[in-house]
């Protein structure tokens, strides 16, 4: 689909980069353009992706120390004074430790704070279950007025970072520490709230977000060789969800698979299930995600494999929903 400007991941060598880096480049580009932004970090500049920004724009940067709650509260004050602020910490610390401050100060005041959850999903790898944030999308999504974006690669991460500066309310951006394939290019369209079809297909739709969009693309390609047309939709914005594209996918393909590097409860899968159930159409749906458990130590790729977040795992889920489609909707 050349109009999307996607990298041909099946034929050319892919470049790898952490989406944390895209965040950093987005911040630098904003500052270079003269945007009046303030960037905060809580003793994670070395890993989260703000160290280069700190070097280039020291007067726009503040490292507040291991004070995530204070950081979110202080950011609220900075936003209250009319400034555009980005706060940076681990996904699980933003969504966990600072959640009440985000809820009761930032969201209650509809304040313009952009929250970066770095090292999210399984990308904290060896650090294991306590550091891997799988619940962040679910808990951020419940907050009134919160926008939630999970970029697929570092380029999309950069676009999302820049786009957040134009969104007046709070935004949660989720990034990963693991080096993952770059599948988009500068010309690939990206609009917050608008999902994009990355591969066409009429037998099933795969809705994915984050670094596993790449795996969905690979799965679709594998399935194509077996005569199954799997549409791939990059559903980078979990909230507001692009309900129209999901509804269309359910009508046109009759079966859905969601894929995310997070908890099976309340994330992209949950959001799609809510949207779908309310259309009144019975469409088989399979949520490929991490089912009611913590992550564990291991290399990022090993963990994706363990949890079935791979082209193979996705293909198996596709076959399952397609067979259910036949069972549940007998030919009339």
């Amino acid at each position, binding site marked *: 689909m050349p109009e999307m400007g996607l990298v041909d991941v099946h034929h050319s060598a892919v470049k790898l980069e952490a989406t944390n880096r895209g965040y950093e480049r987005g911040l630098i580009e904003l500052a270079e353009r003269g945007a009046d932004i303030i960037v905060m970090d809580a*003793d994670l*500049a070395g*890993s989260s992706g703000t160290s280069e920004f700190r070097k280039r724009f020291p007067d726009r940067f503040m490292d507040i*120390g*291991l004070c995530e709650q204070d950081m979110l509260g202080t950011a609220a004050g900075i936003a209250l004074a009319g400034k555009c602020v980005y706060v940076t910490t681990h996904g699980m610390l933003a969504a966990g430790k600072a959640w009440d401050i985000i809820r009761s100060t930032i969201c209650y005041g509809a304040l313009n704070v952009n929250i970066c959850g770095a090292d999210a999903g399984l990308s904290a790898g*060896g*650090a*294991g279950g306590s550091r891997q944030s799988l619940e962040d999308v679910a808990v951020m999504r419940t907050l009134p007025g919160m926008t939630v974006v999970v970029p697929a690669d570092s380029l999309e991460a950069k676009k999302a970072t820049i786009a957040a500066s134009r969104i007046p309310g709070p935004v949660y951006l989720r990034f990963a520490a693991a080096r993952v394939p770059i599948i988009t290019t500068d010309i690939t369209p990206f609009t917050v709230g608008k999902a994009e079809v990355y591969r066409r297909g009429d037998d099933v739709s795969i809705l994915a977000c984050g670094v596993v969009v790449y795996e969905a693309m690979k799965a679709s390609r594998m399935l194509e060789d077996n005569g199954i047309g799997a549409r791939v939709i990059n559903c980078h914005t979990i909230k507001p969800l692009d309900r129209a594209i999901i509804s269309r996918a359910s009508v046109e393909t009759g079966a859905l698979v969601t894929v995310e590097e997070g908890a099976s409860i309340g994330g992209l899968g949950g959001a799609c299930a809510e949207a779908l159930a309310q259309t009144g159409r019975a469409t088989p749906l399979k949520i490929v995600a991490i089912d009611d458990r913590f992550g564990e*130590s*291991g290399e990022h790729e090993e963990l994706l494999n363990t949890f079935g977040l791979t082209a193979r795992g996705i293909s198996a889920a596709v076959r399952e929903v397609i067979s259910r489609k036949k069972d549940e909707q007998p030919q009339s």
Partner: protein
Amino acid sequence: MSPTPVELREVATVLRRDVLTMLLEAGSGHPGGSLSCVDILAVLYWHAMKVNPERPTWEDRDRLVLSKAHAAPALYAALARRGYFDVRELLTFRKLKSKLQGFPDMQKTPGIDASVGSPGQGLSIANGLAIAARRDRKNFRIYCLMGDGEAQEGQTWEAAMTAAHHGIDNVCAVIDRNHMMGDGNTEEIASLAPLGDKWKTFNWHVISVDGHDVEALSAAFNEASSTKGKPTVVIAKTVKGKGVPFMENRPEWHDRKLTEDLYEEAMRALA
């Protein structure tokens, strides 16, 4: 029959070497903050704490809450050398399906008294254990090992108030005061000084020691045990990366990956 200071120092060297080997094998993890608290752990597990490695869940044992959970390799090395599990397990640290997770998981590792991960949460857990012990008329002690960067977390001070208010004297907090955190020097990023005075005004008994002097540490833990009516904090002045010259006081060694060459150089320094 407590080990002699010479023996304790030998234990500490063995643990430092184990930590480096684990980190090399794992390919990730935190060298600096693990090395800085090794002497503290050696004195705790070989001198101060009443434990029985054959019965890791013995009800009357003293407990350790590793609030600075990123120092897990140092604790795992201590547990293995103390006999809780096979030393060879150390090589599985941070690997898929390992007993030894990046951050301590009591459901997987014998000898871990509390699962921990997020800095700043340990002291509250220690207080809870102490309150339960008091109700059961048990006299075990709870040690909580914290980083100084961790003392920036608000929960640390909530817990400090709770412990003092309730006169919890079976908790001993130990602060690994290496003046470093993830991004650099604590006093440049979010200053903690005067740290001892802060704890004093929170009504804690404060003992300041050299955190690499095993005799001073032993004496401090003895003093803490005999201090009644209030909690004790041992502020242990340490060097981040202690024992490996190229790591000492270098902030990048908070979580930098070891190479084979650097590993060899570090092991030579610890021969």
